[in-house]
């Protein structure tokens, strides 16, 4: 068994930042990650990192924009902490050598981005995430932090107290992909989940194949509620054939959207009379789909994004990467012709419920990055707000886990936080098919940390053994079915029957998952096994998204409901929470916090 003070699961931007912070607090940190750190999907981020650096700008404005963007579903303490810390974090990155794009006077450039009242997006060409990821990995190398790379975390080792808030997380169980070894990792001070987004729940996504939502599912099954999962951001500009993202930077620099009739529809059809193409993502995504549905789409599928008028020099200078993407993945030359784009799954606003210190309701368990939901993005994330989130909340989680001195969190977590029960249609079945083996740890007698980890190791060994030895269906088909139904029914436009259909399909997929097996018998680099286990996580996450979407009967931010076309502040200024509850999930709500240092009055969100 390995033992460290702090274990960071996942080595994307959030994980790396957390590890560095914990290391700076003097903790013995180790990272466990299924991909080598530089392969993490943070590297795909293109556009930029928001931070109020200009003297005329201020964190208050950043907080205000974020809150407005969230459609007033962000929690004020989370939003304010974020806007305040983002500035230092960006400067910190610069001090670590990040190759930001520069102004003539040598200062870091900032550009306008959708939904921002001031140009405050710092960037490094159109490959900001790549540089952020590599810069931080370099710091990890510099500090000599232990990295267990290509180790797949199978599950958390959590004590099995009945009340979730009494539970403690003592480590994780991981599978060495190269050798097939299963081992326990004990964490004396804390486990930080930073496993990234769940894009693979959908079939048209900007996310990586490895973004299977493992962290959400593991925390969920350990009893930590998932918050606001219905809020999924669909990015308005992804390439139709692959889902590869065309950065918002293109529109930030002045790129224009046209429909088949070559109308600049954002203005001409009145979707966003002030901001046009730079309106927030949900607005633009819906506008595009509305155009397509009205028969004004090109090939009835997509619209055009044109940047030719920016001129070759400016494009090469700031958006060169976009040219390569359009060329390599769609065969289109952006200097010569407009690029085809359509909305695709991009970002999960919701996630593992935690407070401003990244702490969840289970003692010793933290979440950071896209996996987490401090409730910063609320119902809709602004472009360029995720990368600073990785930094701000990654650092805070790392520091807190390592015992750093921090302010008590204002956000309450766990089922006992001020809450209101929710109800779902009786006919809908969710949760485990067979609840008998869905509680957190198999051995109720396990008391000390070591034996909890050990018993979890045993459990995972058995699970892997069973998958390898039994005969059954290939997980890929189960995964395909989930992705298809999610894309068909839980997409940008959501209808009640569709959502119910999705839940039914997921249920059926769950039942079929009972019979999956791994046909590759090898212990060496068995990706068949890993993907099979990931598919289980996809099921849990997909279900939580669909449940939230069905429960929330209003139209807020990224969540659109056919029958409920208005934002309903009266009834829905609250977060959706779904707790696994040992296999029979429970839905409940908690109120949004709209007041911290400042007070945020819900206003109409118009762009």
């Amino acid at each position, binding site marked *: 068994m390995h033992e460290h003070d702090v274990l960071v699961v996942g080595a994307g931007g959030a994980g790396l930042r957390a590890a560095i912070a914990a290391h700076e607090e003097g903790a013995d940190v180790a990272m466990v990650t299924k991909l080598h750190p530089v392969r993490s999907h943070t590297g795909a981020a293109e556009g930029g990192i928001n931070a109020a650096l200009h003297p005329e700008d201020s964190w208050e404005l950043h907080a205000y924009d974020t809150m407005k963007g969230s459609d007033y579903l962000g929690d004020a303490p989370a939003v304010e902490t974020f806007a305040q810390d983002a500035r230092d974090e960006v400067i910190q990155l610069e001090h670590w050598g990040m190759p930001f794009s520069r102004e003539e006077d040598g200062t870091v450039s900032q550009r306008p981005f959708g939904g921002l009242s001031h140009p405050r997006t710092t960037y490094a060409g159109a490959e900001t995430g790549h540089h952020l990821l590599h810069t931080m990995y370099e710091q990890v190398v510099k500090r000599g932090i232990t990295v267990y790379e290509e180790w797949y975390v199978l599950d958390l080792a959590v004590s099995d107290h009945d009340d979730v808030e009494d539970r403690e997380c003592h480590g994780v169980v991981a599978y060495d992909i*190269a*050798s097939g070894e299963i081992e326990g990792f004990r964490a004396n001070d804390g486990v930080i989940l930073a496993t990234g987004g769940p894009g693979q729940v959908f079939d048209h996504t900007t996310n990586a194949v490895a973004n299977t939502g493992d962290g959400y599912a593991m925390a969920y099954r350990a009893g930590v509620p998932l918050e606001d999962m219905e809020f999924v951001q669909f990015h308005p500009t992804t390439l139709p054939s692959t889902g590869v993202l065309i950065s918002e930077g293109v529109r930030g620099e002045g790129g224009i959207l046209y429909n088949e009739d070559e109308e600049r529809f954002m203005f001409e059809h009145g979707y966003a009379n002030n901001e046009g193409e730079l309106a927030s993502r949900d607005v633009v995504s819906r506008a595009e789909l509305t155009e397509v549905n009205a028969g004004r789409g090109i090939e009835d599928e997509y619209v055009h994004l044109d940047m030719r008028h920016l001129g070759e020099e400016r494009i090469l200078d700031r958006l060169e990467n976009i040219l390569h993407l359009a060329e390599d993945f769609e065969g289109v030359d952006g200097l010569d012709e407009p690029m085809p784009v359509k909305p695709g799954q991009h970002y999960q606003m919701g996630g593992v419920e935690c407070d401003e210190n990244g702490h969840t309701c289970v003692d010793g368990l933290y979440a950071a990055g896209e996996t987490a939901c401090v409730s910063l993005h609320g119902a809709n994330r602004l472009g360029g707000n995720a990368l600073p989130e990785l930094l701000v909340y990654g650092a805070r989680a790392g520091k807190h886990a390592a015992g750093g001195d921090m302010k008590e969190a204002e956000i309450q977590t766990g089922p006992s936080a001020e809450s209101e029960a929710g109800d779902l249609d009786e006919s809908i079945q969710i949760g485990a098919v067979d609840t008998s083996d869905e509680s957190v740890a198999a051995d109720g007698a396990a008391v000390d940390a070591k034996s909890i980890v050990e018993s979890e190791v045993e459990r995972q060994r058995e699970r892997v053994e069973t998958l390898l030895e039994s005969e059954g269906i290939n997980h890929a088909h189960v995964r395909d079915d989930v992705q298809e139904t999610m894309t068909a029914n839980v997409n940008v436009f959501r209808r009640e029957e569709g959502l119910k259909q999705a839940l039914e399909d997921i249920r059926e997929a769950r039942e079929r998952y009972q019979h999956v097996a791994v046909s590759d018998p090898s*212990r*060496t680099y068995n990706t068949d096994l890993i993907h099979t286990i990931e598919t289980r996580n996809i099921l849990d996450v997909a279900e939580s998204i669909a449940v939230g979407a069905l429960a929330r009967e209003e139209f807020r931010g990224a969540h659109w409901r056919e029958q409920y076309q208005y934002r309903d502040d009266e009834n829905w200024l609250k977060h959706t929470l779904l707790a696994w509850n040992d296999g029979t999930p429970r839905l409940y709500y908690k109120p949004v916090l709209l007041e911290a240092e400042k007070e945020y009055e819900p206003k109409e969100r118009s762009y």
Partner: protein
Amino acid sequence: MSETYDRGAVEDFGRWREFKPGMWAWIFHKFTGWVLVGYLFTHIAVLSTATGGDVLYTNTLQGLEELLVVRVLEVGLLSVAVFHILNGVRLLFVDLGFGLENQDKSFYASLVVTAAIVVASVPTFLSGV
């Protein structure tokens, strides 16, 4: 990791058809360089007859020059030397950072010029055997 498989270098040279100009240039330069060193040693060995008196020297040299093989080998030596020089110049430019984008073209140019020079010199080399 239980065991890994080392495919070795054979696999690599088995793919010579896929080699790019830069790689060919490297191989040729290496080959020609080795031939030139080899020649340098033999050359001095042959010239060493000079220490054995003028008759021996003259006879050895002229005797060798009468052989067709030697003449043909000399043409070979010329081509090797010319290529090595031209590609050597190309490499010197590469070292100075000039024309890196056109390194493939300059390699082809070395080949063509070498061929031209060699063909043009064949009469001189083979005359009077």
